[in-house]
């Protein structure tokens, strides 16, 4: 390095003399522009940080928007993430959900919320943002996410938000842009992509990135499980109330299960490959789902650059073969992502072991809590993390697969980035009838 610098310096002085006055103009600028580039490192594993609890620091106050099962779960997970964390406000469209989460917070964490900080209605999130708080937890059905996230960023709040972050391309792009705004505004955003906050996945990826199984050539991702929950419409419920309470079964609210649930595995593939697919060709149907307009099975062939394929399956039907997993295959081996790397012959090359504490006990890594540990630590240490854009990209990947299955067409990423598709009722939302066409898509055309 030293000799290179010396010779370039000599050459520089020689040139100055030769060119004369014009060459000397701004010579100081030229000297400043000398720089060295670091050697690219290969083969070394960058060990992920193991952080079983959030670092201590300034007290952080959070509000929860969307107080169903996931919202109240996330609130408790947040409080369990470390010291000096509090929940100070809640918002939901239903009063019974507000009552429910207040009960759970009192019972499990001895937290009592004043009535003044409990908000009900479609605009409850706006009033919650007026409360003095640092973090907002967004756990409503994903249809609402882009609007809520944008409002949080504009209000300069840190955000924890559940996946998926949108149900349509317009929403996904809105989150991408809001993510960039959050980045520029110095905010921290963590999304509910649990696997990215799991030590086992992080450690496997660190070894794959170091070249342990060569270059990735394909991925398989699955979320095949039994039927998920549904609600029957009650006589005193309006159509809007029914749909929101039954939300995982409605595409405009959930994005369909390939987006709502399977995005976890699709995100693992994007994360490991380090890119998003450029096209999708998929199929799917609705065989046994009791309510809503969603499918209950999808199979999609996604294609990345360099013709790397992601084979994706998801199903929510009882008494079929089930698997929630990934397989990543490289030129020199393969991995399940969640702990093991094998050689092509099946020999174990790496196996994840949880570290132990001082007393020899294995440290526990709950990804649900880890997401909040990572968020709180990032805020307190001033080491910004913003995950919204990457998650929006994975969500848009899943939407691309869904649209391919719905239409029977091959869909490209470019089409998704240029699509004006917006799902759900337009305009002001209210409890009452819902103006959407609840048609279950059927691909292709019938024979003549």
């Amino acid at each position: 390095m030293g000799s290179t610098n010396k010779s370039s310096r000599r050459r520089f002085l020689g040139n100055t003399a030769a060119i004369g006055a014009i060459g000397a103009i701004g010579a100081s600028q030229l000297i400043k522009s000398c720089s060295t580039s670091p050697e690219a490192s290969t083969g070394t594993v960058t060990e992920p940080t193991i952080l079983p609890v959030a670092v201590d620091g300034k007290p952080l106050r959070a509000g929860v928007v969307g107080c169903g099962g996931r919202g109240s779960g996330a609130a408790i997970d947040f409080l369990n993430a470390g010291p000096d964390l509090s929940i100070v406000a809640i918002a939901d469209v239903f009063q019974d959900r507000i009552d429910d989460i207040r009960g759970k917070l009192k019972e499990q964490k001895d937290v009592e919320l004043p009535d003044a900080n409990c908000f009900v209605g479609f605009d409850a999130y706006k009033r919650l943002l007026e409360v003095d708080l640092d973090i907002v937890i967004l756990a409503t059905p994903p249809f609402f996410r882009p609007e809520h996230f944008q409002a949080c960023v504009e209000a300069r709040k840190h955000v924890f938000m559940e996946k998926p972050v949108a149900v349509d391309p317009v929403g996904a792009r809105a989150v991408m842009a809001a993510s960039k705004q959050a980045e520029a505004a110095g905010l921290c955003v963590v999304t509910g992509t649990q696997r990215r906050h799991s030590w086992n996945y992080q450690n496997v990826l660190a070894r794959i990135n170091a070249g342990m199984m060569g270059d990735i050539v394909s991925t398989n991702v699955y979320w095949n499980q039994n039927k998920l929950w549904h609600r029957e419409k009650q006589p005193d419920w309006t159509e809007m109330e029914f749909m929101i309470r039954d939300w995982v079964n409605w595409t405009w609210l959930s994005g369909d299960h390939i987006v709502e649930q399977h995005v976890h595995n699709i995100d693992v593939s994007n994360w490991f490959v380090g890119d998003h697919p450029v096209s999708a060709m998929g199929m799917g149907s609705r065989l046994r789902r009791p309510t809503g307009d969603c499918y209950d099975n999808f199979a999609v062939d996604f294609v990345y650059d360099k013709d790397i394929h992601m084979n994706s399956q998801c199903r929510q039907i009882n008494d079929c073969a089930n698997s929630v997993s990934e397989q990543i295959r490289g030129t020199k081996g393969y991995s399940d992502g969640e702990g093991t790397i094998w050689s092509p012959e099946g020999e174990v090359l790496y196996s994840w072991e949880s570290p132990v504490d001082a007393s020899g006990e294995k440290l526990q890594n709950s990804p649900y809590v880890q997401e909040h540990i990572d968020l709180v630590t990032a805020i307190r240490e001033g080491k910004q993390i913003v995950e919204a854009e990457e998650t929006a990209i994975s969500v848009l990947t899943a939407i691309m697969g869904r649209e391919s299955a719905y239409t029977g067409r091959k869909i490209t990423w470019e089409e998704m980035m240029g699509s004006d598709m917006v799902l759900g009722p337009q305009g002001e939302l209210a409890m009452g009838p819902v103006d959407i066409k609840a048609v279950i898509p059927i691909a292709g055309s019938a024979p003549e």
Partner: protein
Amino acid sequence: MRRKSKKTGRILFLLGVIVTALLVFFGNKAVVATSTDDYCASCHIHPHSTDSWKLSTHVDNKRGIRVRCVDCHLPPHGEGYLVEKAKTGARDVWAKWFRDPESFNWEAKSQIEHAKGHTFEASCIHCHQNNYPLGLTKEGRDAHLYYERQAGELHCINCHITVGHYDPDRLHAKNTDFGIIETASTDLYTEPGVMSGLNDFTEYIPGSAVSFEMIAIPGGSFQMGSPDDEPFRNKDEGPVKEVEVDPFFMAKIEVSWDEYLAFFKQTGAQGKSTDTYLNVDKAQVDAISGPTPPYGAPDQGWGKGKMPSMSMTHNAAEVYCQWLSEITGKSYRLPTEAEWEYAARGGSTGPYYFEGDPKRFVKQGVRNKLFGVDTAGINSYVTYMENSGARSLPPEAKIENPFGLLNMLGNVAEFCSDWYAEDAYAQYSDGVLKNPRGPAQGEEHVIRGGSYRDGADRVRSASRDYTRTDAWLKTDPQIPKSVWWYSDCFHVGFRVVCEYNETE
């Protein structure tokens, strides 16, 4: 001796150090002194650029920040600043001493294509480091997402051309009321024009104060394409075909802004169309739907009125014809490529419908470069590169062709209804072709006649060209992109033909 030479060496070395230090010191002074706005303005003999700069948001803004000439017109320090400064400095000095300031076409130099060459994107980004400030509108966020995905194909000034030099005609806000002209409501035509036999007639657009001339074109036959030995001939102009066309009417001039804006005003959609460009179903476009406000300034600030309209999409031109047919009760459409060439030639068989050799009209070859282009023959007929001043001109600035049509060659290029194929003529069967309509399908449409931007080689009667849909929509950040306006095409318009039915 040795001692002495060592001493001399030391003195020389010291002197060298001092000289170098002085050069660096005064060199820096010189860089600073020659980078002030006053220094720029002392030579740059286009005072309007200083005036428009003073009116721009780069000078007059809430933050009280003043952006100087060199901040945009040179790259940032350390990224080629000095090299570029030396280059532009040398160019400026040369221009100052050896060129006639009157010979510069400042308007042309302020067009985006040229402006990109002396506005450095790295300098934009050097100051504007955040494309997503809080409070940015949804449209703004979408537009910046789009820009970032274009990987170097778009420059900041594709959209933000007015930030450094104010131009009231190009303001984004102008687009929403584009084409809204106050007209007295008393002089509106209530009845369309009357067609009587195969004779020229005047068309009146009902509900507007706009009329235009239609020229009767008798049917006949001609040789379509150019012979192998025609100068500047391209492969797609052959093989030459014997073609017969039925009689029809053709507009004397390219569709003017007056005509096009009558359509815009009567049908213009308030909101955005939900048709995306790629999947718009032509069969479903009824004549009632009309264009949305454009994204840029389609007239480039060159004026409207009788000036040829431009930058509408091929689709928009077709919908215009449907609309015109409906309100006049006639059958208007775009010309076929064969009709267009037949009408342009007007019986002529050479490169142009006037006398002249293309080789003499282009800035090519040693002789023309040394002694200038002899435009005497072409000047009075065609608005083209050598005489246009890089913009379209009023139609009556030129002489008619043998049929009485103006600007068939040059001014703005014209859409035809045919799909373009390089081998379109070869695809036709042997023998005489009757009213050929081009390939059954394709991706881009034929455009004919060349424009104010083309050299004499491209404004020949047989020259063929075609639309570039993707490239012409590159800047448009809307999702979906406009079906009605190209954002990056300011040299193509169209001319209508009207069908003639002898039994009527």
